């Protein structure tokens, strides 16, 4: 199967997924390039969390998922993490019974012992407030600190692409800015980020490109510097301009690996 050099880091095509009998996502096409920060926006129930779970292997799905040139179809989270694709779950789920340091060490579970401590330090470097409390139980952390810890866990893996599910949820504005600042730093250092968010303005300020997901399908995709984006997003959310949005996304075309026939 011919792959051109321009293939994006993450390439998703025709992805459908759901929970048991309930179909949630229909035929999703999405890409994230190396070093890009892509925002995935959409109203509740649209399927954003489902999409991340399908990509990281937590949920079975149909369709194609390729990461760094490798086919990830049917792979579980363990394989995707090893490939460099890391998923930070929604709801700042850390292990409250363990210390922050233990939480990070667990992320380094598969690494040789000598390297673990180094990776933990690396991750903590971006979060001095967590580093100061590294021996406290994660259950004693505030929601915002737990969120930062969860992101730090993801960073221990040295991901090539970090997927975050609503990291701002339940956080005070100050902490949200803190988290977003870290994401900005990540982007600068070359880590690609796929960010699911409810806070449109802040996400748009940070992202290179944006997808809007509604009712299980991509209704809009654009670069963030384009004009009139917030207005178009609004319309896409409430489905008021469905055909218009569809035409736009068709115009731009969905990014596919150029050259050659797409076959498996």
């Amino acid at each position, binding site marked *: 199967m011919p792959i051109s050099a321009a293939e994006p880091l993450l390439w998703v095509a025709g992805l459908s997924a759901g929970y048991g009998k309930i179909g949630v996502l229909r035929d999703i096409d999405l890409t994230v390039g190396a070093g890009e920060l892509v925002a995935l926006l959409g109203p509740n129930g649209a399927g954003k969390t489902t999409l991340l779970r399908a990509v990281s292997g937590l949920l079975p799905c149909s369709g194609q998922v390729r990461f760094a040139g490798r086919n990830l179809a049917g792979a579980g989270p363990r394989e995707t993490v090893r490939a460099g694709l890391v998923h930070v779950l929604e709801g700042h789920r850390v292990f409250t019974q363990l210390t922050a340091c233990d939480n990070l060490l*667990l992320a380094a*579970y598969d690494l040789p012992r000598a390297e673990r401590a180094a990776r933990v330090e690396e991750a903590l470097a971006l979060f001095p407030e967590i580093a100061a409390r590294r021996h406290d139980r994660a259950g004693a952390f505030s929601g915002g600190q737990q969120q930062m810890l969860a992101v730090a866990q993801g960073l221990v893996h040295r991901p090539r692409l970090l997927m975050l599910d609503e990291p701002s949820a339940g956080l005070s504005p100050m902490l949200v800015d803190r988290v977003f600042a870290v994401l900005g730093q990540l982007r600068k250092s070359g880590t690609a980020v796929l960010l699911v968010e409810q806070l449109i303005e802040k996400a748009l300020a940070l992202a290179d490109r944006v997808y809007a997901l509604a009712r299980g399908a991509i209704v809009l995709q654009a670069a963030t510097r384009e004009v009139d984006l917030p207005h178009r997003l609004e319309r896409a959310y409430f489905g008021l301009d469905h055909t218009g949005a569809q035409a736009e996304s068709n115009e731009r075309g969905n990014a596919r690996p150029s050259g050659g026939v797409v076959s498996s």
Partner: protein
Amino acid sequence: MVESIVSYGLGIGCIYALIGVTYNVMFSASRVFSFTAGTLGMLGGVLGSLFIARLGMPVVVGFALTLAASALFGVLTEIVAVRPVLKSLEQHLYVLSTLALALMTQQFTAIEWSTEPQPFPRLFDIARGGFDQQFWLPMLACMVVVVGLELLYRYTLVGRAFLAISEDNYAARALGLPERALRTASYALAGVIGALAGFAGGEMLLAFFANAPMLTFYGFVPVALGGMGNNRGAVVAGLLLGLFQQAANFLVGGLFASVAVFTMFIIVLLARPEGLAGMAAERRV
């Protein structure tokens, strides 16, 4: 008399406590209570007697083999009776599958080993009497397990991984932890703990297939009273149970002692279904 109640009560109480811990270890890893906990205790005694008394192996070798075989049995339980039904939505199925496996093992033991209790070898060549080894061996085993688990959870990464999958299995998966292997390992560990209980208590309980249903019940009481997954609660409750049972034995006689234990168990459970130490779970609607 008091001395007898205390030594016997604590001894048997430690066995009950260890079976309770066995239940808890399996529960922590899979959110499932398995009927095989009592069977593991039985196997500890039967296999110990088989290897050491009948086949004449040295004590250390017989001990190691017993633990290894029981670890294997634990793994078998996970693969055959737990993993296939975890995916299913029908909650009651794991009760039945583990019950079936426990039953098969008990019956096999009854037929191939003996339907009568067989003697368990004396492990250390010390004269009987006083604070006899049949009493302090279970207590030693209990201490070793409790301390060992504490060390495991606090100082090894594997132990902390066990705690992680116990608390939030989904997050552990997402983090890339080998959650399935860890679960299987937990069941192997449970096998070892259960067998240790049966082996250390071999002289008290003898090598008898009917120990399995007895331990299934009496080993669960500490779990019910101490709270699901709570090992410290299980140990305390186990010791209290042992003492209570022995006291009742002396006061009202052996057969009615069981009635006493059971009645107490039912009353406590009905008053506090989550156990004395457990927290009431919120209902999800």
